[in-house]
């Protein structure tokens, strides 16, 4: 291809758009015309800590097959694939994940006009879902992973800490897996309204109840006999949320850590009080595997809930920086509360 395409390159905390020639896909690889790429909490945390080298972010993507390398005839599920089909892909491959590589591989991230899946081992799935649903496939797979590891059972009371994208998706997957009572702790108010539309029975706004002891009393009052939840998911990525969350687990219950994808330091924990006395079961969730992605896509394609409403903003490539700034504090952009911000090449 003689074409060129734009790529957003991040260094330090600066974003720069550059033009690169678009490659022809080698055998067993594919080239995708980007439709949407989500900004993830991990991108945000890494950006807050500043990039030492030029990095191409964006690992949550949906796009249209622009060109297929020799030998690529079907998707990961065995469905026939051709140019023009919409696909989502899992960022894991045989090398460094897509969305985390350097500028020597110009189309390796999702904040670009094209995405080149240059490794021979890829997991991409053809989909009919609208782009605003497809763009959720990667974070949704993390929710699937978290809920499967938590072993949610029918009728469970579930508490989710954090009403960002991961918190909302984890809550949705818990609901679809049989949880009967969903308590979402987070903020701001608009995110909690969305949580209700997605199935939360009770929402607790941390801005309304900033004092830990009061919040604890309120949250526990919504659990059976005030004894805590069967499963607590920590999706806030905020260190003090971890000991707070341990306090919400009932005896013999489960705590799932889905928040700290980036190292934000240590927090004091008491092994006797936090772990042993509740006879705690804890799971730490690191990303997702292909099978979580496959299951998650099947759920998203059913489209039984207003998944697309989680995409609060779609920005052009030039406004990536605005998206990061909004996620870095105020959760407001263009007069709207931010949930998931997607960047679109055609916007």
């Amino acid at each position, binding site marked *: 291809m003689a074409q060129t395409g734009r790529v957003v390159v991040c260094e330090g905390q600066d974003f720069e758009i550059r033009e690169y020639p678009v490659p022809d896909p080698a055998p067993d690889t594919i080239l995708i015309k980007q439709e949407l790429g989500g900004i993830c909490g991990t991108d945000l945390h890494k950006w807050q800590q500043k990039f030492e080298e030029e990095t191409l972010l964006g690992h949550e993507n949906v796009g249209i097959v622009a060109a297929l390398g020799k030998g690529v005839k079907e998707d990961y599920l065995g469905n026939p694939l051709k140019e023009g089909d919409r696909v989502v892909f899992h960022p894991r491959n045989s090398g460094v994940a897509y969305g985390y590589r350097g500028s020597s591989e110009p189309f390796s991230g999702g904040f670009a006009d094209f995405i080149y899946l240059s490794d021979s081992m890829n997991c991409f799935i053809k989909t009919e879902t609208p782009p605003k649903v497809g763009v959720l496939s990667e974070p949704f797979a993390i929710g699937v992973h978290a809920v499967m590891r938590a072993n949610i059972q029918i009728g469970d009371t579930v508490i989710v800490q954090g009403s960002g994208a991961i918190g909302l998706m984890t809550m949705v997957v818990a609901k679809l897996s049989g949880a009967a009572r969903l308590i979402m702790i987070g903020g701001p108010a608009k995110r909690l309204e969305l949580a209700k539309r997605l199935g939360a029975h009770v929402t607790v706004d941390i801005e309304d109840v900033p004092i830990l002891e009061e919040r604890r009393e309120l949250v526990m009052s919504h659990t059976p006999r005030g004894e805590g939840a069967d499963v607590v998911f920590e999706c806030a990525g905020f260190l003090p949320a971890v000991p707070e969350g341990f306090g919400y687990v009932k005896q013999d219950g489960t705590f799932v850590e889905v928040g*700290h994808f980036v190292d934000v330091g240590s927090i004091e*924990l*008491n*092994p*006797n*009080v936090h772990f*042993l006395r509740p*006879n705690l*079961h*804890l799971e730490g969730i690191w990303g997702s595997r292909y099978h979580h992605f496959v299951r998650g896509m099947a759920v998203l394609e059913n489209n039984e809930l207003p998944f697309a409403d989680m995409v609060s903003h779609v920005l052009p490539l030039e406004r990536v920086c605005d998206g990061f700034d909004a996620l870095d504090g105020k959760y407001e952009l263009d007069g709207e509360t931010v949930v998931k911000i997607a960047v679109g090449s055609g916007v």
Partner: protein
Amino acid sequence: MARTGRSVIAHGQEFEIREYPVPDPAPGTLLLRQEMSGICGTDLHMWQNGIGRETILGHELCGVIEAIGQGVTADHVGRPVREGDRIIVKPGTDGNGAYGFQPPGDPIDFTGGFSDYVYVGLPNTVFLQTEAPAEVAVITEPFTVGVHAVLRGDVKLGDTVIVQGSGAIGLVTANCAKHSGAAQVIVVGGPADRLALAKRLGADVTINIEEVPSVDERREIVLSHTPNGKGADVVFECAGFLPATPEGLGYVRHSGTFVEVGHFVDMGSIDLNINQLMMRRNLRFEAIWGSRTEDFVRGLRLLEKNEYPYGDMVSHVLPLEKTLDGFQALNGTYRLGDETVVKIALGGNAR
């Protein structure tokens, strides 16, 4: 009965022997003549912190049925029981208090094992008849903690397992991991005599923390015994020493399991890095609080087969008068007489 019997009353850090009238067992209850009762790490830690109210300690206990209350014909699994049979008791009773943690007379006397008699009179008590010798039967309760730990840790055939701590809980956990099919059991602990016993109970490798006091050096040696140096499938923290928790989390392979079996008593807090120690490793973490009835049913049958020298875990049997000596030995030197301390048992009839 007009007889009396002795109980050791613990308060603060003092022990006092008192005499109480020996009860006739009410219907549905049993009176045991105590044979042996182990001093547990929990007892020790409570004593170190100062025991807040008068308590009859001793929740690891075995004895012989002295008198049987009306209507008691079988144990929890249906084995018939009669006077003269040896019995072990699960200390927790689901809401009716626990043997070894009650004040005298609340609600009955002789609720702890550091006594001449044990009155198995708390409602809903689980007890099991056994043919195991007393020095093996007395290990049952700590052994069930090991059973609980390996079940929750889900130890599988061929697993590499690391056990931190070579006290009684560490030793039984290593043994239970071996029973569960672990191929490489690595015990990190000390002193040397305890590690020698760990080997006889099934450990493949032992690492003496006295010889390798630096955490970094120890880490290198411990990991060198795991596949590709990448860590163990399951790590059991049985030391009850706060810095052992972050050290042990660092011994788990990616997607492996960490089992916390050490901090039965509140020893305070420690800084843990949630990203490095829990998330990045895709960790499964289980914390073990005591043991459950099923662990007693499973564990006692294993002990009765006596395929390992379980009785050797009881390093000392002391008379009730020497309770304090036992606690002092566990509180630092790990020596009593000329022997390294492992499990100290108090015997109602010991001299």
